């Protein structure tokens, strides 16, 4: 493990509080360690880290099922900064929606906002504008919702809400989709690792027929299959982050890498969650066991920021456009 991975792992493991909802204590620790707004430029108040750095940190967040919108905040901070808007302190979210903007007031619904109820700001990409909404401000009603992992996914109803508005940077919709998908793939890599680590441990502790179930080849084979999936999603997320660091999000190679990483991560998510639950037996299917913290995230996250179907369709389109002579060059396009 790298130094940053070790740091993130210990900050998350030591700093998590039990319970439900936003983990404000962990957030404060992460902020104090400089792990919040990791990839945002230093002049904008970020840590100026790389996407490879983010892979290490989001891996820990995913592996422990930490209740903090770290990935979402990083993406939103980018969008706000790129649009020239001030980046508020605290957790942030970025979503695409179409509220009606009249001057500095907004009307309409903004759905699926991660941690909307406790966000310090929500960056809404509305056509060619970026709109910064304060969910706690006047004219905003928050309707609480949640994904499969009980992570807040709220709806903001704007009724004359005061907002800051700026022109969206060129290609903002595309870059937002790619950044969000990359971050989600990085989180999925962590959740998959967390599910495998718990399963390996459980298989070594749970005794049936007079020996740990991990001694049975049938169980070993399943865990090895899960390990292969964990390796695949980790490799894919890591390589996509490296592509983004090297070439930026405008590059065709980065788009291919992110699409492939999110599609592959989604496949791995289902396979790893299934094996983890099978190995854990009935106890893993209960609320008292913490396996659910990672498996429900695997199920929720594979469908967020573009499910496999979405990114596979894009990749299929690119393969068809490349044709027989262009497919291999497409795959080997990056270094």
């Amino acid at each position, binding site marked *: 493990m790298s130094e940053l991975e070790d740091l993130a792992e210990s900050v998350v493991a030591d700093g998590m509080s039990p319970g439900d909802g936003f983990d404000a204590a962990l957030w404060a620790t992460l902020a104090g360690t400089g792990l919040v707004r990791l990839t945002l430029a230093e002049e904008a108040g970020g840590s100026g880290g790389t996407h490879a750095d983010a892979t290490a940190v989001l891996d820990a967040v995913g*592996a422990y099922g930490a209740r903090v919108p770290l990935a979402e905040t990083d993406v939103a901070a980018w969008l706000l900064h790129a649009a020239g808007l001030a980046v508020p302190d605290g957790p942030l979210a970025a979503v695409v929606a179409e509220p009606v903007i009249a001057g500095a007031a907004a009307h309409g619904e903004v759905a699926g906002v991660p941690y909307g109820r406790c966000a310090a700001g929500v960056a809404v990409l509305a056509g060619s504008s970026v709109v910064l909404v304060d969910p706690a401000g006047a004219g905003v009603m928050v309707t609480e919702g949640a994904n499969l992992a009980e992570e807040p996914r709220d709806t903001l109803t704007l009724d004359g809400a005061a907002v800051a508005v700026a022109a969206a940077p060129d290609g903002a919709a595309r870059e937002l989709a790619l950044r969000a998908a990359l971050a989600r793939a990085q989180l999925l890599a962590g959740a998959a690792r967390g599910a495998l680590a718990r399963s390996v441990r459980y298989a070594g502790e749970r005794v049936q027929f007079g020996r740990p179930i991990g001694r049975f080849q049938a169980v070993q084979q399943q865990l090895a299959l899960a390990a292969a999936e964990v390796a695949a999603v980790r490799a894919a997320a890591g390589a996509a982050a490296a592509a983004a660091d090297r070439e930026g999000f405008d590059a065709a190679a980065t788009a291919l890498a992110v699409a492939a990483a999110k599609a592959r991560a989604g496949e791995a998510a289902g396979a790893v969650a299934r094996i983890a639950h099978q190995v854990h037996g009935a106890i893993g299917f209960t609320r008292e066991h913490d396996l659910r913290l990672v498996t429900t995230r695997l199920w929720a996250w594979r469908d967020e920021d573009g499910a496999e179907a979405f990114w596979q369709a894009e990749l299929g389109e690119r393969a*068809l456009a490349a044709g027989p002579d262009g497919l*291999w060059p497409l795959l080997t396009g990056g270094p």
Partner: protein
Amino acid sequence: METLTRLPVLVPPPAELPPRVAALRAEVREFLAEELAAGAWRPRADVWLSGWDERFSKELARRGWLGMTIPTEYGGHGRSALDRYVVTEELLAAGAPVAAHWVADRQIGPTLMRFGTEEQRRRYLPGIAAGECYFGIGMSEPDSGSDLASVRTRADRVDGGWALTGTKVWTSGAHRAHAFFALARTAPRDEGDRHAGLSQFIVELDSPGVAIRPIPLLTGAHHFNEVVFDGVVVPDELVLGEIGAGWHQVTSELAFERSGPERYLSTFPLLVALLGELGGREFDSGSRRELGGLVARLWTLRRMSLAVAGSLDSGHAPELAAAVVKDLGTRFENELIDVARVLLAVPPDPGAEGGFARLLADAVLHAPGFTLRGGTNEVLRGIVARGMGLR
């Protein structure tokens, strides 16, 4: 919260090919395009088993693309494993006939550099780099497949060397190769240490006492052989490495064998042919997704395989990661066939000269081997399970 159980490294950090390989890649592509335009061969599936073409191997050698990692003093080119990676992935993706030199170039050269004597290196490496000296693999036996440590081929001490008696099987290309490394028992089996008492010998296949018989594949094609030793005398100078260290040597040879591009590209030419057939047709979204799913898996496998190559290149032996690449990669080779059949309802035709129907036939008929050779996927998963502390 309690810290999670530490898992072993299942995939090395991302590796990138150095920019210098772009020119090399372009040269290889240009050469392959010329060969194809001249009709020198047709793209096939599973070419590293079945595409034996000595002219082609010598052409590659003439361009400096064999024995790339062998030092120049032994006739090689002193380049990195990543340069070799680029050449091999280009050849496999094109479905080019690489079988003749495959084993020699992939594992015999590196193994001789690691364990061979100066005399052995001078004897074989220049021929390997020239595309003129071909090797087989002498590991499996009729009663020893996955359980390789149970080999019964015996090497008895004789004056000036060792006399080998026993039988090796599934030796691809033995009827055309010049030599192979035979794994044999040099001390009686010890149940307390099953890996002790094994040694490797360089056996030249025209030696007296060697009998080679074909074992036709299910297609009837002759690639596999049975190689029988009847008191074959191997002189001391052809002992590979140390007597008794055979197990260690063989397992380090396998690390080179398990994670290369041949573990996920065996059926890639079928995907290329599929795209050729699909050109201009209308597609539903389901078909695009099937195709895109293959692209996502293939892209990921290539990044994993490159990560292992980068790790090998910097002197590590990522055994678990190599096992994982082979397990996922060989399953992908099969999945590609499934998708091709769903997207294009053209029956396989083993009698066709080339094209999709022929590639499909070869791919289907060769598929059972993908998940067997180089260690069955079940054995590989056992290695991964052991790495995670389960056994």
